[in-house]
């Protein structure tokens, strides 16, 4: 039996740090395009069986007022390969890194002489490529985060309406 801590999840804090750094750089560009200012920072993370490490964070401001923060949560996340939270005054959203190509698993059907296996896709519905996704709370379909979606989420967590 596999240890549940390692079963089904690929852990790599180094990959996670690289992914977060790239995401923060991408978001910084989107924010600057909309005349928001950004402040880069770093957060120390402590996870089981991994040496403490730092990952990039970001504050997003408009005219000196904080609208939201991107805060890395960790590489060890259930059902994903890493998480960054977008936190504003009125809400927070979990942004998750998903892999587009998960392996196929074989599902057993029938028993005894009738036993047969059929392939089943492990790929998450809505996940078409590696990247950062936001999952809407009702439909639970991950949506790839692009500039428009990120700015919508920023409005949602801060109540700041873009002109």
């Amino acid at each position, binding site marked *: 039996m596999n240890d549940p801590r390692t079963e*089904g999840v690929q852990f790599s804090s180094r990959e996670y740090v690289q992914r977060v750094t790239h995401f923060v750089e991408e978001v910084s560009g989107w924010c600057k395009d909309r005349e928001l200012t950004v402040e880069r920072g770093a957060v120390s993370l402590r996870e*089981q069986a991994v040496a403490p490490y730092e990952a990039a964070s970001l504050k997003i401001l408009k005219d000196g007022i904080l609208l939201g923060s991107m805060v890395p949560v960790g590489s060890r*996340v259930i059902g994903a390969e890493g998480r960054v939270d977008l936190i504003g005054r009125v809400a927070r959203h*979990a942004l998750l890194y998903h892999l587009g190509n998960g392996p196929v698993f074989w*599902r057993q059907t029938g028993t005894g002489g009738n036993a047969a296996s059929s392939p*089943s896709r492990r790929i998450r519905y809505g996940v078409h490529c590696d990247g950062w996704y936001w999952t809407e709370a*009702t439909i639970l379909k991950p949506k790839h985060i692009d500039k428009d979606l990120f700015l919508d989420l920023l409005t949602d967590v801060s109540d700041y309406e873009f002109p």
Partner: protein
Amino acid sequence: MNSHNPLDPVYKAYAVASDCFRVVTRAIRNPSKELIDRTHFDAIDPATVDTAVDIAAQQAADLAVLALFATFERFVIEHLQMANRLLAAGYPQQYSAKLAQKFENEVEYWKFGEVLNLFKGEVDPDLIGQVKQVKQYRDWIAHRNPKQPPAAVSNPEMAYDVLTRTIEQIQQTHMPTAEVMQDVAPALVE
């Protein structure tokens, strides 16, 4: 999404609670006496309101994960107890009846991780691994040790998603076929 998902009432209650926190945060920006009269916010320092609401929101999220997993455990145990009928229909009859009774009495006390392993083969083993991680996170919430971080973090949305997909796979692959029901039915009638 499953139309008969036993997790739905818990998840919907959490969603409503989350929106309540959002409404409070907005209302507190321009507090009126009428709004906050005879509430916790009447006496609290306005500068600490955001922190107080954040802490309450996190507690509500943790409790939602606890409740979601408790409901999921009940679903799985009840599903297993259905297997009692198949055991009771075995041969020889008296032995099978005793075996079925023993199974029904004791299945509630099995380690839940071992119960989940019964579903490997029909349910994606990766998904079962994620369910075990949700359980670990549930245990961490229940016995929180500030010196020890959780093995993997979750939130109600992810817990609901993982547990719902597992329920769907169990329901899809564990519905008895017509052949099985035909074999079992005579024994059930006796």
